[in-house]
């Protein structure tokens, strides 16, 4: 397996891999997102308690789930970079960071929009909300550290260390806020009794989760491609690529 994986440590091969994968991510992402969102927003049955406002679940839950998975993926990329000294792993890590941050932000925003009609407040210091907010801060930290360095190779390593510190911290944060919350206020206000979801509601949700995951993969690959090109600008293979593109455009 390692023999098969190792060539992709080379930026050129990684770039080619991105190109091959891109259409496989793009088309299913569009299909899943369009079908899932339309189905969820227009055709899925109303919730018997929450009426139509529950429909934001189709954006909220996928973005919240994937904001966390993206962080874990980022940390794994950082670890791979550290252990096997792959430059492309750091590039992948930093390609993921802003995407994950945006997902976290979407989750917080849609959560606030959902919380207003349901709980009567845009924001409560509930365990989930707080840990999601801290996740956003962790993303900001990684991005800020990366952009502070001139030398991007060094920047990748430094941001990788911080991403790993953050990933160790995430379970601790999760449990600490859960504790803190139950110690400070009764669970009646924020307890969200989720009825086990009906199948007609579940399918579009699953489709959207899948679609979001593919969409993140798509944006990450595109950003990774850009990152590779930017770093390898002076390498012969990039200049060949540019020349090819020019001649193609001319024809």
């Amino acid at each position: 397996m390692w023999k098969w994986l190792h060539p992709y440590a080379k930026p050129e091969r990684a770039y080619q891999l991105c190109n091959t994968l891109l259409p496989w991510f793009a088309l299913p992402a569009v299909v899943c997102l369009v079908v899932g969102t339309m189905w969820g927003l227009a055709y899925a049955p109303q919730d018997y308690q929450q009426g139509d406002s529950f429909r934001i679940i189709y954006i909220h839950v996928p973005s919240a789930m994937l904001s966390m998975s993206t962080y874990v993926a980022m940390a794994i990329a950082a670890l791979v970079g550290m252990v096997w000294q792959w430059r492309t792993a750091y590039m992948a890590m930093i390609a993921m960071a802003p995407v994950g941050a945006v997902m976290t932000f979407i989750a917080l925003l849609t959560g606030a929009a959902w919380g207003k009609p349901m709980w009567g407040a845009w924001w409560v210091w509930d365990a989930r909300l707080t840990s999601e907010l801290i996740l956003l801060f962790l993303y900001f930290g990684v991005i800020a550290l990366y952009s502070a360095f001139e030398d991007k190779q060094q920047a990748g390593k430094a941001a990788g260390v911080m991403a790993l510190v953050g990933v160790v911290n995430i379970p601790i944060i999760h449990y600490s806020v859960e504790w803190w919350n139950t110690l400070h206020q009764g669970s009646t206000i924020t307890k969200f009794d989720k009825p086990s979801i009906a199948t007609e509601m579940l399918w579009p949700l699953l489709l959207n989760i899948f679609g979001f995951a593919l969409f993140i993969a798509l944006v990450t690959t595109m950003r990774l491609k850009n990152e590779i090109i930017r770093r390898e600008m002076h390498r012969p293979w990039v200049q060949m690529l540019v020349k090819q593109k020019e001649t193609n455009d001319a024809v």
Partner: protein
Amino acid sequence: MGGVFKRDLALAFRQKAELVQPLMFLVMVVTLFPLGVGPGPVTLQLIGPGVIWIAAILSSLMGMERLFRDDFADGSLEQLQLSGLPLYAVAAMKVLCHWLVTFIPLLILSPLLAMFLNLTVDMYIALVITLLLGTPLLSLVGAIAVGLTVGLQRGGVLLALLLIPVFIPLLIFATSAVDAAALQLPYRAQIAIIGAMLLIAMALAPAAIAYSLKVSQN
């Protein structure tokens, strides 16, 4: 190894201003709260543990840079790396020294702060225990971020940005321990968790600090 420790301690005591300034900052931040939220003893008791912990975190962020900055600037950090001593041990020594000169004075000052904020004796005991266990954690985890930012021109604000989210669990457990003590409830669970976090950090942080210093030296 002992030499590194002695040298750091001697250096710290020759730059007294750098030792005293974060402490003055701490006392002033604590002073701001009664003025800001009103001097009612009940309110102060309610917010007291949180205020002391937040002030401790903020003041530690101010002095944190000192950990590696000077040694990095004059090249002695590079010499230490080349000396053949294991870097993680050097890092651990430096962190120990930093903790001694930064947080022991804070612990000595803590009765004064507790009195300012009208804490009861039970609360004060819990506060001291959390400070004893929690502040080494601040030094250990903080040193990782300092190691990463030491080569940067303006690392100060970035350091705070990196560390504050990481310190949140500690703040939560520490203040909840003191709050439990205020209600005469047992608070061993919170102390145990802070202790567990400290042990994990003691095991992993020196290696992480050593790695981050290597990254900074490039």
